[in-house]
């Protein structure tokens, strides 16, 4: 019988899905990704999380619930760090523990909770082998699968760098857009920016307003590094925050965009500080407008729409359109 591995469509899904999917498939497992976020996902998530948790955590738990009963394993690694001297977020560090706390049923899928901590520059090999060992004892096969998976990831990231949204890059569908009159950077954690349910179709709405959308994942890593290095600030220690801060500065300085929207979950720890730095910097320069869009489970679609439209009007007005 083929082992079924469930991957929740939340948190770092948009950053790593080609890697994870290919890896497990190469190891002979069937991969089931949870359904796209919808009202039910959120309702399920709300039921099993504390109300203090941020929206992405609630949504993630909803995705896990969506997979229960359909899979043998759920891949929910403890992603402490994916690069030197940086972390993702304390909540990611406690994720498998919080999951185990709710998946107490004997029938519940097992959690693959490999700890990935590259903050000291090592640990990748161990992490890969440990994950693979659930499926085979052959380390060479595991590593080989990983290498294949990684090349899928690289291909995917290249497509995103070239300006495709993850959804397109994953389905390998190339879409052509009408030439837009404005461009706006939508910056935030990938699980917010690319989840059209929680952001209430932010990207689509912008495009309908004739706005081209750029995201942080479309900025090459070295540019981000360069921007961060040029800041007169202590080194930031959140990977996702670094990307937002670096991309904001890049777009801003290179005059690539006419406005910036920072999307954050309400109550997000890292973003409350990173967002503050970004906003203050852009406002001080007084050249392009910036909007903070905080989302949570209570955000109403109408309110967001009005804010987006007002923002687009403002961008147009500043540009003299």
């Amino acid at each position, binding site marked *: 019988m083929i082992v079924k591995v469930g991957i929740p469509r939340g948190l770092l899904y948009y950053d790593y899905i080609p890697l994870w999917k290919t890896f497990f498939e190469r190891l002979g497992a069937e991969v089931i990704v949870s359904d796209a976020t919808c009202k039910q996902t959120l309702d399920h998530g709300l039921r099993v999380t504390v109300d*203090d*948790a941020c929206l992405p955590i609630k949504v993630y738990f909803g995705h896990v619930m969506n997979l229960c009963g359909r899979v043998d394993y759920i891949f929910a690694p403890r992603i402490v760090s994916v690069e030197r001297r940086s972390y993702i*977020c*304390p909540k990611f*560090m406690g994720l*498998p523990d919080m999951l185990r706390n709710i998946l107490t049923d004997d029938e519940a899928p097992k959690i693959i909770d490999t700890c990935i901590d590259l903050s000291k520059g090592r640990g990748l090999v161990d992490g890969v082998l440990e994950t693979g060992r659930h499926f085979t004892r052959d380390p060479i096969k595991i590593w080989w699968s990983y290498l294949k998976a990684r090349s899928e990831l690289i291909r995917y990231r290249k497509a995103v760098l070239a300006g495709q949204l993850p959804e397109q890059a994953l389905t390998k569908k190339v879409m052509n857009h009408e030439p837009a009159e404005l461009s706006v950077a939508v910056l935030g954690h990938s699980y917010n920016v690319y989840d059209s349910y929680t952001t209430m179709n932010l990207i689509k709405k912008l495009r309908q307003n004739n706005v081209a959308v750029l995201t942080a994942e479309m900025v090459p890593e070295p540019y981000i590094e360069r921007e961060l290095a040029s800041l007169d600030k*202590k080194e930031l*220690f959140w990977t996702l925050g670094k990307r937002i801060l670096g991309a904001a500065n890049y777009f801003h300085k290179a005059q690539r965009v006419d406005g910036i929207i920072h999307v954050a979950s309400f*109550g997000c720890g890292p973003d*409350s500080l990173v967002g503050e730095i970004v906003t203050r910097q852009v406002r001080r320069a007084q050249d392009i407008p910036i909007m903070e869009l905080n989302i949570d489970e209570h955000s109403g679609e109408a309110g967001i729409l009005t804010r987006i439209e007002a923002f687009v009007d403002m961008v147009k007005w500043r540009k003299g359109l």
Partner: protein
Amino acid sequence: MKITFPHMGNLYIAITGFLEELGVESVIPPKPSKAAINIGTTLSPESACLPLKVNIGDYIQALENGADTILMAGGVGPCRFGYYCEVQKEILKDAGYNFEMIVIEPPCGRPLTLLSKIRKLMGGASWTELYRAGRMAWQKLLAVDEIEKMAHFIRPREVERGSTSVIESKALKLIHSAKTLTELKEASYQGRKAFSALQVQEDRDVLKVGIVGEIYTILEPFVNLNTEQVLGHLGVQIERMIYMSDWVRANIIPDALPFLSSEHKRTAKLAKPYLNHFVGGDGLESIGKSVEYSYRGFDGVIHLFPLTCMPEIVAKSLLPTISSDLDIPITSLVLDEHTGEAGFITRLEAFVDLLRWRKAKGKTVANS
């Protein structure tokens, strides 16, 4: 150079002790109050955690009082505290203040920068003077902790309500104003003496409750709405998960001295069945200590943290399981600038009622 620093409970006593000994002038911000919170919340990002906001209030009041340098601790993540300094700098700059900020970072990997910062603080002082200042600060910390622990024990047993707090604040004042180690010893002695002379009711049925949670919230009585005192008056003896000297031991004294961090390892081990990894801040400690309090037969645990505090949200998600596994009532209480005192105290009282009821029930069960 006139140095100021943020408040956290009675930490100012140790810091001023340190700076005085170095011969550096300091400006202590007024104790946190509504004023500090109001200043802090108007200027800070709304979703920042409470300590950042109160810090801003502290700084601004001190800068208005003539301070020109801010002394602040740093950090290397994963929690927000390590990046407070940068955000606070921006906020204060935009508000039009001129100042310098000295951020003391943990020495990992960069001992030289730490050294240069200490040099800056030292001014013209010599290394011997630095050693003396460090010793003074440490002794003051120990003295403060001793007084606080005594107060925790005696308050629920006092005969005259409020008498413990009077002695406590007198003793702390003496410790604060002690200029030499001899004076400090004398101050501690006076405190102990006053406490032992206090009239107490030995046989009072006292409940034991552990306080766990985010360090700032549990150490700063203004933001926790005087939880310790309120509980004491309700006949509850408390033990805090963190005393300041423990914190300094764990954070400033490097891991190179492993015998000192064994306490931390023990807590992590207790937490393991529920939380198997460090989660930043004090989250792991909150879990481990809750388990410990249950093993030690405490009647309950109160978990305090500021709204949106990440490590403690992880902890809060796990505490209900500990509570049912180990049969100990645990309540999580969230604090922010909008928390109303009356409502908060009602919740504490309700929790204490529950504990009393459980204890009484437990007794009848045992007797029958």
